[in-house]
């Protein structure tokens, strides 16, 4: 048995590659880290879904911990998430600001009428103005904003009981305690 460094080299390269591949298998390629953690929520001024004459802006985020939830009537996963949001709103856990994304006004209103409206206000963002500022890639996505209007956490995909109990709720509790 005789190993030469020259002969061993291809094996070592291949070995390193296998490790990287194996690691790659454990990750979901669709998930994107948010750029906006610990940055202020982007400035916006967009119409209210309920009343197109009224403009909503950042003042709705000041002074309280808020959940900002991106949804659309076209989004299948949002249907799945909706009952959970309705439950949170009924229990008065946290104010939820909705962003109706890439939707028509009629469809958005009809969707809320059907499933119930868990949102304190709904921002109507038909042209992805706010969505692009938030770096949104799909719906539903949810941002946790602190009292100073800073984004603290981003969740991709539907909020489930598990996500709420294990991640969001503890975060909200600790953020409520902040000055």
């Amino acid at each position: 048995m005789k190993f030469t460094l020259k002969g061993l080299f291809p094996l070592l390269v291949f070995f390193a590659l296998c490790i990287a591949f194996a690691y790659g298998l454990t990750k979901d390629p669709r998930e994107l880290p948010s750029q906006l953690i610990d940055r202020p929520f982007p400035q916006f001024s967009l119409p209210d879904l309920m009343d197109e004459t009224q403009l909503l802006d950042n003042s709705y985020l000041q002074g309280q911990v808020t959940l900002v939830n991106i949804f659309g009537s076209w989004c299948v996963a949002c249907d799945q998430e909706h009952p959970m949001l309705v439950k949170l709103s009924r229990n008065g856990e946290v104010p939820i600001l909705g962003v109706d994304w890439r939707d028509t006004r009629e469809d958005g209103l009809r969707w809320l009428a059907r499933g119930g409206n868990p949102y304190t206000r709904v921002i109507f963002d038909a042209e992805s103005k706010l969505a692009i500022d938030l770096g949104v890639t799909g719906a539903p996505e949810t941002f946790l904003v602190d009292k100073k209007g800073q984004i603290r956490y981003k969740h991709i995909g539907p909020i489930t009981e598990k996500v709420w109990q294990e991640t969001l709720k503890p975060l909200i509790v600790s953020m409520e305690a902040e000055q």
Partner: protein
Amino acid sequence: MIAEIGQIMLILALLLAFAQAILPMVGAQRRDARLMAFGDRAAVAQFICILVAFMALTYVFIVSDFSVKLTALNSHTDKPLLYKISGVWGNHEGSMLLWVLILSIYGALVPVFGRTLPAGLKARALSVQGMIGVGFLAFILFTSNPFLRLNPVPMNGQGLNPLLQDPGLAFHPPFLYLGYVGFSMAFSFSVAALIEGRVDAVWARWLRPWVLVSWCFLTIGITMGSVWAYYELGWGGWWGWDPVENVSFLPWLVGTALLHSILVLGKRHTMANWTILLGITAFSLSLIGTFVVRSGVLTSVHSFAVDPARGVFILALLAIATGGALILYSLRAHTLRSNAGFDFVSKEGGLVLNNLLLIVATITVFLGTFYPLLIEAFSDDKISVGAPYFDISFAPVMIVLILFMGIGPLVKWRTDSFANLRPHLLKSGLLISVVALLVYLFGKSVLGALSMGIAVYLFYSTLVAFGKKIGFGKPGAWVRAKAQSPSVYGFLIAHLGMAIAMAGIVSMSVWAEKDVKILSIGDSMNVGAYTFTLEKMVPGREVNYQFVKGDVSVSKNGKKIATLHSARRFYFVREMVTSEAGIQVRFNRNLYVGIGDGSQEKGWVVRAYIHPMVCWIWLGALMMALAGFISLFEKRRQIS
């Protein structure tokens, strides 16, 4: 019933492959002729079993037997027969069955063409081929069984992915796999050679046709994929540096290197270790390609439905096959004897350079494709590596390669002097300058002009090299031309094809023009010298889809030169929208229109493109494939 026959045949094939993996290897160690000969029979029997299984699955698709889960998920009664058949491999399970079918075809051809091979080498190679068979048959049976039944039986199937309902794509996978899997021969024979500790001219000359065949099929497969992407994806690209495209390109690059190194090994008996390593690498890259497409570790337009369990299985296969071969290589590489060294100016040297440059190209593409994955594995960052990276890093390597490609064929074996080449280099320099100047006056791009000059130089140099071989200009040149061996013509056509493809690629990347606008009926847009007008949008329906067809007229200098028809199709069964591009194909330029989202009130998104010389790319690629097939007719020289 038919499905069950297929199932049984697959199990039988797995058992046969198992025997084929073990018995001939044992036989070769013990020099037992009967055990060694068993490999031949097992290979043929395995092929027959898999063929029957494949035919069973095809039958199930043709008669639309929806009690088989795979058919229910991927077929539909309202589908043309062609797509019922291509539906067999238009899904993960079926395409893996096609994969092993092709593997077994190559395996069965070893005894047919390998009568003159040393018995030990043949037995060991077939044994390795058997091991690969075991791995992939087990993969199919345990993670992707195509014959699973469904209960209750649905009324109808869910249809084939509309993007795949296209004649170009129907035959894209078979060609691609004929290429990918063909490299298993290079792999098996390399491993066998390592076990024996011996590589010689017989080995190299016997293996070269198989490498050629695989390479040709891979070339055709990649070209078909490129043509398909061009007219089906609707954004006028012929190559997107998409991960799935890249992983088919990687074995092609290494295969090209292997073709050249095995030539040197056969003629001069140098580069033995290197050729073995390339043989292992070419097939390993094919396996990595399979792994990437099936596991979803990289996102891409073309991926099949992803499943981590399958990814784990293929990764394990890859680790065992390639890892095993490389361990063997590290143990045995130093025992393989070959002549060392090459002269600075010599054909051997030129081919070494060719290999080195192709490997740099391979590593560049590999790095670009897998870098995001590597970064993610070792940090939390997420980056993209797209076309701009490859344009900057891959193109210069190719330019250097092509510069040498114009010289290499003119150099003599063993040793040559620089002085002999000087006249050619001077003429070439002059040629490049003149062509570049002319092109610059016409096209106003320094980069484009220089690259075009280099493409013309490659064309010219290839003709010069051929002329030198036949003594062009001296009496009897025509007779000598006819007497040249097929591989000389292979060289000629392949290298000319490369020059033509390069010219196409250069003009597409430098002089293509495009615009995207929202047009209502009657609106026009200008692209380059052409005016595109949206004339009308007509709705209609076919058996399996509903469509809106747009007529776009194109005029130049106020004269109408074409009406292009582009359509948006809505497929009922899958609820999917596809776009059909409207293309006027001409030898020197294509006009291309794709219609996107829109409505009567708001207008439609219209993409219009002028594509200069895009057909040259595919013409060049097909010439390369043709050249490979011509080289196959090389008479085997008898060496004992």
